[in-house]
């Protein structure tokens, strides 16, 4: 009898362990599906238009800079494994060191950030980080969480203005920043850009953490401090056959045009 009971117990445990294991392997959606990509892109366009109307975010019209940013963006986009987004990189004229993500694959970069980066690879690492926020739908998740899907999609001009305000002072939580950092490192490697450039960029930011010009920069708006993120970025190991291909850009010449 005892042996039979033990056998039953083992069968029960086995069956439920198997259910747990199999159910764990299923690919559960972890990104918000409440807002379609198409709708997100339409909203994103409206937000970008509104943001650029603000004198603080006036679009910088400089062909040289635009083409440099496009070139970096194209290289990163070409190495995305899969993306539902068509990226739009916009440079705005501001001394602030800043870059932020707007729904629909729009990434706004300040001219101050371009001046702050010592190489196109550093700018690429920031852009890849922002693309991580786009691909993981962090901005949309945050907006849905804070405002709710109904308000977000209402199309009301006043709401649009408020959302725009939220977007320009975006901050993400620790987990989202870590996800974006990891995404950036992987994307940089695939794009033949040294993935640990991100650590260099973080170190520079850390050294200038008292700089008033970067107080709105989302990358530095979250905890934990930079030390752990620098450590994490440095611990990324590229593949043995990885070879960095330098960006064919006259960076100093580009920065001189700012």
């Amino acid at each position, binding site marked *: 009898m005892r042996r039979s009971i033990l056998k039953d117990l083992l069968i029960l445990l086995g069956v*439920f362990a198997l*259910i*747990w294991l199999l*159910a764990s392997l*299923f690919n559960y959606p972890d990104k918000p599906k409440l807002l379609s990509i198409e709708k997100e892109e339409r909203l994103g366009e409206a937000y970008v238009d509104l943001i650029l109307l603000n004198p603080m975010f006036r679009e910088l019209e400089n062909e040289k800079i635009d083409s440099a940013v496009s070139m970096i963006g194209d290289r990163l986009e070409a190495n995305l494994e899969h993306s539902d987004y068509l990226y739009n990189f916009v440079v705005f004229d501001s001394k602030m060191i800043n870059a932020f993500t707007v729904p629909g694959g729009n990434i706004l970069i300040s001219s101050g950030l371009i001046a702050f980066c010592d190489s196109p690879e550093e700018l690429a690492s920031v852009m890849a980080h922002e693309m991580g926020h786009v691909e993981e739908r962090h901005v949309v998740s945050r907006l849905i969480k804070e405002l709710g899907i109904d308000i977000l999609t209402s199309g009301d001009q006043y709401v649009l203005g408020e959302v725009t305000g939220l977007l320009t002072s975006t901050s993400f939580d620790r987990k989202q920043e870590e996800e974006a950092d990891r995404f950036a490192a992987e994307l940089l490697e695939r794009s033949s850009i040294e993935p640990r450039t991100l650590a260099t960029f973080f170190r520079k930011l850390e050294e200038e953490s008292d700089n008033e010009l970067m107080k709105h920069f989302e990358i530095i708006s979250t905890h934990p401090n930079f030390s752990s993120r620098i450590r994490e970025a440095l611990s990324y190991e590229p593949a043995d056959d990885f070879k960095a291909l330098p960006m064919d850009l006259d960076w100093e010449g580009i920065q001189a045009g700012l």
Partner: protein
Amino acid sequence: MEYHPLPQPDEIEVRVREDAMGAYFMMFATTAMGLPLPILNLVAAVIYYYVNRDKGKFVQFHTLQSLYSQIPVTLLNSGLVAWTIVNFVKDFDFTGFYWGYLVMCACAGLIYFIFSIVGAVKARKGIFYYFVFFGKVAYHQVYRIRPKYGTSAPENRPPSY
């Protein structure tokens, strides 16, 4: 190991059958309470067992079977509630393991629900219905003939070689 003989359906009184059936249906009454705090289900099952255990072995078997089968379901659900709270408070990821655990809890709950319905119907008919594992444990505990210590005279035996 020896066991007491089992009563046949026509030997079991209707009132006894209804008490046995109640062990399973009590679970439905406490489900609403047990959703936020799964341990309440178990407390109710323990109380039901102690109130009804003197009503004969048939009732005792069914209440014990219901009680035992509720223990793992309660533990699983408590784990789920704790895991969910921790994830929200600490802002942890809802990983595949979490969702897998949730699916497993749902399966356990569903199986427990189906077995309980069948158990209740059978108990009402005066029939023994054995859940996998728990049925055997309950039968063994209720119907096993226990040796009566201290009543028999001491017996001398030769040494064992």
